[in-house]
């Protein structure tokens, strides 16, 4: 892949924009939750943005993603609009799922985003299925399935990796190892050092990537994606990352130290990417303008969502199948 110097600046800036938009969205979500505007819970990926953005960089337009409940970053990286995302967070009719799913279930059919899944590891078999469909049809598409470190102990992980391996499905399993499954440290729930090594049980390559570095993620994933695409089979990619925020609002974080968090914060992918853009020749003022524009776009989308109406009760049957009945 050759890139001219001028292009490089644009590329790095685009990546920065994407990261910045996601981070900003998550911070808005934090704030909206604290203002009781988000119902239930919300699982943010602050600190982990480089993995989703790297995944997008490594994939082609049209490639699919099957996110989890911690899935805002993927939806946005795949092109979901802020309007659709804020609308869903707030349960508005303008939301990507018309307010039916909320934070955990962001979906965007047109952009290739399957519904975020709130059952740990349930997206892995589903991702095998989208890949299987593509293989059967002979379609040139890859599915990326992100999930957490804790998910590698869930039943569906095992069956899905094996199925994908034996059928050489065009899917990439992307483990976001943020060291904790909810509040439980990974070392208490597995006895191995590298989760990537679990690929070997299926005859599948397992590789690690620095999940705090968007380009590192993109390059490791590119290889996996481009192996998968022509039928070379799936890969287990373990991105080493960290969430700066709690697992969910209210998480008191007794399971980790301030120092640990600070160490990881020092590797904030947003900060690094800003530097990368500058190194690639983008001027400080151009970056500032961009930052202002992103912040404004977020504010505007949030305001629009707050002002948008909730779904009509009369439409409660949207998405019901033809044989469901919902009169009382």
């Amino acid at each position: 892949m050759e890139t001219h110097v001028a292009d490089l600046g644009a590329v790095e800036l685009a990546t920065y924009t994407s990261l910045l938009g996601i981070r900003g969205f998550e911070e808005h979500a934090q704030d909206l939750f604290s203002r009781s505007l988000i119902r239930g819970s919300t699982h943010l990926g602050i600190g982990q943005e480089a993995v989703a953005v790297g995944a997008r960089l490594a994939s082609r337009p049209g490639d699919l993603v099957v996110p989890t409940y911690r899935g805002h970053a993927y939806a946005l990286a795949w092109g979901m609009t802020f309007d659709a995302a804020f609308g869903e967070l707030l349960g508005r009719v303008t939301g990507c799922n018309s307010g039916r799913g909320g934070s955990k279930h962001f979906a965007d059919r047109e952009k290739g985003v399957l519904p975020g899944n709130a059952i740990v590891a349930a997206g892995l078999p589903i991702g095998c299925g989208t890949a299987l469909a593509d293989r059967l049809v002979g379609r040139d598409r890859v599915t990326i399935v992100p999930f957490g470190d804790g998910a590698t102990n869930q039943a569906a992980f095992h069956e899905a990796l094996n199925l994908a391996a034996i059928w050489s499905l065009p899917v990439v399993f992307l483990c976001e190892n943020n060291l904790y499954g909810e509040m439980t440290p990974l070392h208490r729930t597995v006895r191995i050092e590298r989760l990537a090594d679990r690929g070997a049980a299926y005859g599948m390559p397992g590789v690690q990537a620095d999940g705090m570095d968007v380009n590192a993620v993109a390059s490791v994933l590119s290889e996996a994606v481009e192996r998968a695409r022509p039928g070379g089979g799936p890969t287990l990619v373990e991105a080493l990352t960290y969430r700066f925020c709690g697992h969910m609002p209210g998480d008191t974080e007794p399971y980790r130290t301030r120092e640990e968090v600070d160490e990881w914060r020092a590797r904030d992918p947003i900060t690094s990417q800003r530097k990368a853009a500058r190194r690639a020749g983008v001027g400080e003022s151009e970056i500032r303008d961009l930052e202002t524009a992103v912040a404004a776009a977020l504010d505007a989308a949030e305001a629009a969502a707050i002002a948008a109406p909730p779904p009509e009760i009369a439409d409660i049957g949207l998405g019901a199948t033809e044989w469901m009945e919902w009169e009382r």
Partner: protein
Amino acid sequence: MSEGASRVLTYREAVREALSLELENDPDVFVMGEDIGQYGGVFKVTDGLLARFGPLRILDTPISEAAFVGAAVGAAMTGKRPVVELMFMDFALVAADQLLNQAAKMQFLSGDQFRVPLTIRTQQGVGSGTAAQHSQSLEALFMHLPGFAVALPSSPADAKGLLASAIRADHPTIVIEHKALYGTKGEVPEGIYRTPFGQAALRRPGSDVTIASYSRTVHVALAAAETLAAEGIEAEVIDLRTLVPLDYDTVLDSVGRTGRLVVAHEGHRNAGAGAEIAARVSELAWHALRAPVRRVCGLDIPVPYAAPLEAAWLPSSEAIARGVRESLGSATSPQAA
């Protein structure tokens, strides 16, 4: 429902024919399951399909129900029409998340962005001695949690026609065959036809009492009706065919004429399909009912192995006849009357 000629087929052959025709008809249809390809299925339902349609349409899977049901969900969400064979209904419990949390909910929680035209084919029920973990009837689970349309064919013709409908549906469906019916025979129309969901079939007219049933128990109910006829009691036997949607119109029409309803099925009684039917009909036909709705079901304990216990566990034709007699013998109107 039918067109053109028909011939006698077994229930097994009828299912196979539906699969073949739909596989021919639509390249998006494919079939997945354990030992369904080379071996043709442990009940031999899919025999010959691999040779005919090849390994991209007939997929043998590992023993990984959660993965292949989940894969079918994903494939269905992106345009395919997978037909999954779950070898025994009991194994739905190892794939319950994919079935009931995923397939059943994707369309709704995505705000109608994704549809799941998935068909699950399975078999259930008491055969002969398959015991507690291979004899269950689990239709009530799929009835309770909204998402699947549920069919339980009792005849070869319906086994074909309902499966064909299921495969064409744009929503999750489960077609629950009965292991003891695979060898039974009946007239089956040739060619493609699709038996609509939500249309019960009147299997025997009668004026004294209505028996509503489905799957294998329809035949047991018909036997009970014969016994009763010899006693001068004319039972109307309705084969519900699908539980979701359920054709209450036909049941209510019949109960409007007979005033009495017995529901018979193999699944457990407690919070089973019969409970819903009894509750709904009691509500909707309150004025027509001359006796409480009775239920004759599988017992509310696991299925035992030994032959006499298994027989006692099942709703026999004698038990159904007894239910009818009790219905006819019991007080014809509430105290308040």
